[in-house]
C-alpha cells in the first residue's frame, strides 16, 4: 500500500495531479492508514501508467475513463477499444490537417512580407491579419 506521496514518486506524477485523478474517478484509495491517510494499491499505480500512456496517444481524461471502464468490463472486446483508437486517429489526422493549413497560410504571409526593414506600420503581415479580422467580424 502506498501513501499519495509514495504513489506520486512511483509514477512521476504530482500529488495534485493524483488528487485530480481521484476527484475525476480515475483512481481511488483502497484503504486508510491508522492516521487517516488515504492508501493506494498496486492497481492504482498501474492505472496511472495506463493514463500517462493513453495521454501520450492523445486521449483526453474523459476518454481514458471510458477506456479504463472497458478494461474492467467482462463483456467488452478488443473491437470496442480499437474503434476508440481509430476515432482518435481520425481526430488527430483532422488536427494535423488544420495545422498544415495554418502553416500554409503563414507561408503565404511570410512570403508577402519580403522587406524586413519596413516600419511595422507598413508590415504586410499585420495588414493581412487586420484584413482577416475585418472579414471575420463582417461574417
Amino acid at each position, binding site marked *: 500500500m502506498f501513501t499519495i506521496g509514495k504513489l506520486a514518486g512511483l509514477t512521476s506524477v504530482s500529488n495534485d495531479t493524483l488528487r485530480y485523478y481521484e476527484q475525476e474517478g480515475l483512481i481511488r484509495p483502497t484503504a486508510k492508514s491508522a492516521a487517516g491517510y488515504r492508501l493506494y494499491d498496486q492497481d492504482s499505480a498501474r492505472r496511472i501508467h495506463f493514463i500517462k500512456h493513453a495521454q501520450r496517444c492523445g486521449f483526453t481524461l474523459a476518454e481514458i475513463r471510458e477506456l479504463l471502464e472497458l478494461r474492467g468490463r467482462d463483456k467488452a472486446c478488443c*473491437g470496442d477499444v480499437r474503434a476508440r483508437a481509430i*476515432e482518435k*486517429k*481520425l481526430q488527430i*489526422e*483532422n488536427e494535423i490537417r488544420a495545422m498544415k493549413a495554418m502553416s500554409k497560410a503563414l507561408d503565404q504571409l511570410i512570403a508577402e512580407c519580403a522587406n524586413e526593414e519596413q516600419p511595422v506600420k507598413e508590415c504586410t503581415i499585420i495588414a493581412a491579419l487586420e484584413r482577416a479580422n475585418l472579414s471575420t467580424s463582417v461574417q
Partner: protein
Amino acid sequence: MKVELFCSPGGSACWDRQAELRTAAQAAIKDVEWRETNVLDNVDHAVELGVMTLPSIAIDGEVVFASMPTVVQLRKALIARNRGRA
C-alpha cells in the same frame, strides 16, 4: 446520389448492418451509388469529409450520420436530399 458508409475493419456491428442499409437505400433512391469504405485504408478521404466517429454515413460527400442510423432514418434522409436535388 452517392452514399458512403465508413466502418473500421473489425467493426462487426457495422458490417452486419450494411446489407440492410444498402437494400433500404437502393429501394428509396433509384440511382444510388452505395460504397462501403474501410476507414483505415482511406484515412485521408475520411478526414477530408469530416468523418470523426464510426460508423459514419456520408451522402454526396457530406457526413449526414455520425453513428449508425436506422433504416427509417436513412430512408428519410435520402428521400429529403433527393427532393432537394429535383
